[in-house]
């Protein structure tokens, strides 16, 4: 590889530090940049949160150690407008968005890509665990990381295809343990820094408290009724921002069988509960999909589709539509298909792209499964389901908030 001018996004964590440091060690002309995403003021912060002043000091120390220049760029406005407020809006209206993806799309691979010219950079580097490869036909492909446990391609599914030719992921071939070993070898002080686990802007994980307290959102916090599939009232909920599809814990309902949050209806301010089977969905329809392909795949393409960050992926067929959305039909029903989360499609190790889940579909043959029905709150389409956290309390969903 010839000497490149690389703009390296640095969060202050060990991954992005090693990514930048390895490039500098290889002799590339690296400029480190931390995007300042949110103003935390003087509130005490978890050491796991990125973007704090301490995190900037950590990133700066890495730059000094490796001998490259480092800048902080204020991106608070973009972060607020494109990531944080939409996420809050989602909660208030019953959708569980995945802000790490929108942050990647709009900040790291949006705003920062546009800033590459500022630094006269050829390539953008980040510490994501993913790979980029140029295919024999000349197209660019986003691939899963070699370390499957750390793979972050899910969170990158909505970045622009055109960016792939300009990014480098130095950690894509590495295991996490190797990354820490590199950090130690290079004498980077962040080598043993803990992983960030939650949303960087809500380091204590109290989403409802952040939305209603810090942001001052009033919608979604009024108590309402828990109902069953017949509309019978089962009890009182604390406000829809406290619930997510698939959630079992913290419902405060004594029932003969285990109950899960099946749907959330912000208009009626009800949270529908039901047995585990009621969470099963045979498919989903996305919002407009971002394809990491030169052209959308053909109808019926076989793929693996991940519906949450930690979802292993389910075999499915893809049915792209004229309007840029996709219907995903799973081979086997999937639990807790949550509107707002991403559906990310893979063929083998290649990520085809992804889009927000607009609504889920019940098994074909079900009277409510008609696609062209007005969606909304028909039983057949669990629309606008949401709850606090990114499915973090959900009994059937793995925590999906891991930073990416």
């Amino acid at each position, binding site marked *: 590889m010839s000497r490149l001018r690389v703009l390296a996004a640095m969060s202050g964590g060990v991954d992005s530090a090693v990514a930048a440091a390895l490039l500098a060690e290889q002799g590339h*002309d690296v400029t480190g940049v931390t995007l*300042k995403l949110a*103003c935390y003021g003087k509130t005490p912060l978890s050491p796991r949160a990125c973007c704090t002043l301490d995190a900037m000091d950590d990133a700066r120390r890495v730059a000094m150690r490796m001998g490259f220049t480092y*800048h902080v760029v*204020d991106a608070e406005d973009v972060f607020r407008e494109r990531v944080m407020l939409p996420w809050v809006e989602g909660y208030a209206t019953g959708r569980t968005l995945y802000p790490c993806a929108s942050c990647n799309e709009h900040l790291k691979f949006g705003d920062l890509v546009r800033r590459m010219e*500022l*630094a006269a950079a050829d390539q953008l580097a980040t510490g994501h665990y993913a790979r980029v490869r140029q295919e024999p036909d000349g197209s660019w492909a986003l691939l899963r990381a070699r370390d499957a446990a750390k793979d972050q391609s899910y969170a990158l599914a909505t970045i622009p295809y055109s960016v792939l030719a300009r990014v480098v992921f130095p950690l894509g071939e590495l295991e996490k343990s190797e990354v820490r070993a590199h950090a130690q070898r290079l004498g980077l002080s962040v080598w043993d820094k803990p992983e960030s686990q939650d949303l960087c802007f809500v380091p204590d994980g109290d989403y409802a408290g952040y939305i209603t307290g810090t942001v001052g959102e009033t919608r979604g916090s009024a108590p309402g009724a828990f109902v069953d599939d017949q509309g019978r009232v089962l009890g009182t909920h604390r406000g829809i921002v406290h619930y997510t599809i698939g959630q079992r814990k913290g419902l405060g309902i004594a029932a003969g069988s285990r109950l899960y949050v099946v749907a959330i209806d912000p208009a009626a301010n009800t949270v529908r509960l039901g047995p585990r089977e009621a969470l099963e969905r045979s498919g989903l329809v996305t919002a407009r999909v971002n394809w990491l392909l030169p052209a959308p795949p053909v109808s019926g393409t076989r793929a693996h589709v991940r519906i949450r960050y930690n979802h292993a992926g389910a075999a499915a067929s893809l049915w792209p539509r004229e309007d840029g959305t996709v219907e995903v039909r799973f081979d086997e029903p999937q639990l807790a298909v949550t509107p707002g989360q991403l559906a990310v499609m893979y063929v083998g190790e290649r990520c085809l792209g992804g889009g927000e889940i607009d609504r889920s579909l019940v098994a074909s043959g079900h009277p409510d499964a008609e696609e062209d029905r007005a969606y909304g709150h028909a039983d057949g389409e669990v629309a606008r389901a949401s709850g606090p956290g990114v499915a973090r309390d959900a009994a059937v969903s793995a925590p999906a908030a891991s930073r990416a």
Partner: protein
Amino acid sequence: MPDTIYLDHNASTPVRPEVAEAMQQALRDLGANPSSAHRDGQRVRAAVEHAREQAAALVGAKPAELVFVSGGTEGDHLAIVGSAWAQRERSKHVAFAAIEHHAVHGAAHVLESLGWTHSVLPCEPSGFTRPDAVNDLPAGVSVLSLMLANNETGVMQPVAALAARARARGMRVHCDAVQGTGKVPVDFESLGVDYLVFSAHKFGGPKGAGALVVRRGAPLEPLFRGSAQEHGLRGGTENVPGIVGLGTAAELAARGLSDESARLLALRKGFEAELRLAVPDLVVHGEQAPRLPNTVNVSFPGARADHMLLALDARGVAASAGAACASGGVEPSPVLAAMGVPRELAICALRFSLGRTTHADDVAAAVTRIADAVRAVRAATGAPA
């Protein structure tokens, strides 16, 4: 990347070779403690006192009035806190101009935590503090702190006129002359102030060395006490290499001061004119007020300062944001805010400061690079080109 053009002399200046030479010699040969009675100690003492004469001459002060300190921040603290403290029986109220350096605000915070209150002298939109603003201060101000030239805008303040009014009202006056000293003639006597601080690294000397001039008889409690160095006003073994460097730099600065001042002014005027040709909608802050000959504080509308610094760094121009961005966030500088500069313009403010190593070809090349950076930033962030 091309060689960097250094236009950040208000932040710090390169050490002059003669200064480095004198300091190396001091490090090599002046190892004793200047307070020691033996001949080695006396040799060091002589070097310190020689430097005191050199430094005092730069600002028209008597050597006996000069106290060596670590730099501007310490000097501001010693003058303001030390003077207020010495006058504590009389008054617990101090005053300073709105556009003062952080060091002055810091000293005021120290006093505030000890029960003092303060008043602030406002400034005009030009960045200039009107002399009659002193008349609006409440009675009983013990110390008034005034900056000779603003570090961000370069605007020169009418310190002599302000000080005359303040002293007539019974105030002691401190002048933070850190940014002006070495760039324009500074005369302690004609300024008519009680305290005046300057710092070596702003005019070719080392960092960590400065001096506070204290008028004979002016009240001052020392902050550092110990073995009564510096007439008991600043305890602690002297920073001998730093002091020697300060003295040497002061002598060199004094020697060619008016020529250098005129040269910088001509360069700056050319720089501003060429910049305006390249980026016609630029706004120079403090343009209507008398300014230091080397300083241009300018906003390129739509090109935010943090983006510009990244772009300038990549293109080989070293400058500073005219906005406060220590924490990474872009906030309008308090100085520009005090001048009433609108936020959208203030967050685009950059400071270019010329110096002894700046020449006409640097300025011409810098204009090209700056204009290119402005284009890149505006293109990247969607601002009109």
